[in-house]
């Protein structure tokens, strides 16, 4: 027992820090979620049990936010970032060195830009008088106003633009790990590009796909700055994903207690996604 304590003692400061700065806020968050705490205009907060959660589940605005979050995550993380990242990584392996360098640099620049800067850049791109419409008009194509007509699609595109680099890096590393002999022998057996992709490449990078999907999803679920800069969740509530909804409730409407409860529910959504991915990962081919 004492030996164990001694062994743990060098880790004590780290444990204390973790408890203080990680577990502490999470615990406080859980506490706030069961109170009716407001930012202002209230003499004292009181314990309300699970009322905030019941309110959320019955709130059509909350359900709308959940639905939009799912759309945003599936379109931008699963379909967009993930597929595009894999395609880019695959294509870049065959590209010449200059093309690889330039493309890589461009894609990664989008990724390292601070979120709010990316938000404003994309706002000027999608805006009615923005770059995209200037290009479309020059090509004599019909122009768009997606920030207004299809805001959830616009913010999804924005997230794809910003987050693809991450998937590309993950897949570049994964593809480099595939032994040359396997691909070559498949080629000798007469397998074409698509068949090689389906039967060799994808199964061999299966674990990377799982990890990448999970990280993409968790990152996308918590995207706030990008959406806030582009649409503020509007017009109406047509691009109000859960993090934007949570901010709106907690800081615009001053309902800290309710906002915190929504944050915890967001955590549940993330956990559900993770559980699915972990399950997929466990299955052996």
């Amino acid at each position: 027992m004492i030996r164990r304590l001694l062994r743990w003692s060098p880790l004590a400061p780290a444990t204390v820090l973790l408890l203080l700065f990680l577990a502490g806020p999470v615990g406080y968050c859980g506490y706030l979620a069961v109170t009716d705490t407001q930012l202002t205009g209230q003499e004292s907060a009181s314990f309300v049990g699970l009322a905030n959660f019941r309110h959320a589940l019955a709130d059509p605005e909350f359900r709308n936010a959940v639905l939009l979050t799912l759309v945003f995550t599936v379109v931008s993380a699963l379909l967009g970032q993930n597929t595009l990242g894999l395609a880019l990584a695959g294509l870049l392996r065959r590209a010449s060195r200059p093309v690889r360098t330039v493309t890589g640099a461009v894609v990664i620049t989008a990724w390292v830009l601070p979120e709010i800067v990316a938000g404003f850049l994309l706002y000027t791109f999608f805006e009615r008088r923005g770059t995209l419409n200037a290009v479309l008009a020059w090509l004599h194509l019909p122009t768009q106003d997606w920030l207004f007509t299809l805001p959830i699609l616009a913010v999804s595109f924005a997230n794809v633009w910003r987050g693809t680099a991450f998937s590309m890096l993950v897949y570049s590393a994964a593809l480099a790990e595939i032994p040359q002999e396997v691909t070559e022998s498949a080629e000798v057996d007469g397998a074409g590009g698509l068949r090689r992709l389906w039967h060799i490449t994808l199964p061999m990078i299966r674990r990377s796909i799982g990890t990448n999907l999970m990280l993409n999803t968790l990152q996308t679920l918590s995207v706030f700055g990008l959406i806030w800069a582009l649409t503020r969740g509007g017009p109406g509530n047509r691009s109000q994903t859960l993090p934007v909804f949570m901010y709106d409730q907690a800081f615009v409407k001053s309902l800290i207690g309710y906002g915190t409860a929504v944050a915890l529910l967001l955590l549940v959504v993330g956990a559900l996604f993770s559980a699915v991915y972990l399950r997929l990962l466990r299955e052996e081919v």
Partner: protein
Amino acid sequence: MRSTTPVALFTAAVLAAGALTGCGSGSGADRNTVKVAFIKDTNNRVKVRDDYVALVARQFEKANPGKKVKLIPVQASENDYYTKIQQMMRSPKTAPDLVYEDTFLISSDIRAGLLRPLDPYLKSWDGWRQFEPSAKAAARGQDGRTYGVPDGTDTRGLWFNRTVFAKAGLPADWHPRTWDEVLDAARTIKRKVPGVIPLNVFTGKGAGEAAVMQGFEMLLYGTGPDQLYDPAAKKWVTGTRGFRDSLRFLDTVYREKLGPEVSDALSPNIQTNVAAELLPEQKLAIDLDGSWLGQQWQKTGGTPWPQWARTLGQAPFPTQAGAPPGRVSLAGGWTWSIPARAPQPALAWKLIETFQSKANALEWCTRGAQLAVRKDVAADPRYLTSVPGIGFFTQLVAVSRYRPALPAYPQVAAAIGEATEAVTAGDATPEQAASRYDDTVRSLTGGAVLTKP
């Protein structure tokens, strides 16, 4: 063992820092120092308020030998500033002696017990008699006591472009008497001067409180008495004709395409857009906006536009059908208040008197493009010539109404923003949006609302 040393050192440092600062702030109370907390602009180049506060502080120190003023500028956006001062005022260790409070939120802080009533001081202060009655009411709590001395205000009205009006055959001294006359002028402009946006009324969530106050409430307060809150019953009002009519006005503006493109109108950038582009570039004929707009086009402003004083005219916004007093304006502004836990309230009051002496109040109004709340300042020639149009907007102070000074107001305002956004975007009819607003207000107040026809 070696690898953990930095961690241990770091922990020790953190703990020590915590203990030291905890100690430090406790021993800061000094009987001769008065601490003043105020908001500092997030743009470092804007120092109007900082300079003015410093000027008054020096004056105070000179007039009161041995006393010191400690300035606590809080550089933050308005929302973050509110949160910061609310936290400071919670503890006697950190409470400032004097705090700069927005009338938008002051009632919340009164309700939370953070502020001190000033009535004993006001009773024996000559200056208070100079204040406009509406300004005196700005910081009055529900208990009837006064919790702050306003240092200026702002009003709202119509700005119109005389060049565009001439092209459309409309008078240069335009003075609409009803909503319909405003809409008719806009329709005329749409017909005769293509390419110009006839009328801007702020709407939706993007412009935030600007849309609620400059836009919707300018309409609502002209539809009849107590359409938002009934002070006699002390209840928020739902189901009113005025609320629906105001939404219908917005619906007309945006369905008939008399306003900016809906996507622009709902964008968070619309305010800057109007002041920095649409009006100076003569692309907007009529704008329902605030009294401070002129400072943007002064030589020192963000978009210098020398001809603005000749090009733009001002007209009061009319009531719905011309009912007396025939014009509507809302007023906002900030006050100086003393926190309930302030260590030096008496000294803080002396400082308020210095801030609101006639000379200093005049100084602040001319520097900060504020509308005077003191009658003697409002009549001063130096004030009346500080910015063109200031005379017009000062007249409106007399008819100006303050928003309901109630703790729930910020949440009600958010619900109004949502209703206007739904109507403007075409997601709901005025009736649907109004009934959704009613539901929200009912749930906000736990059902304590008054339903009016």
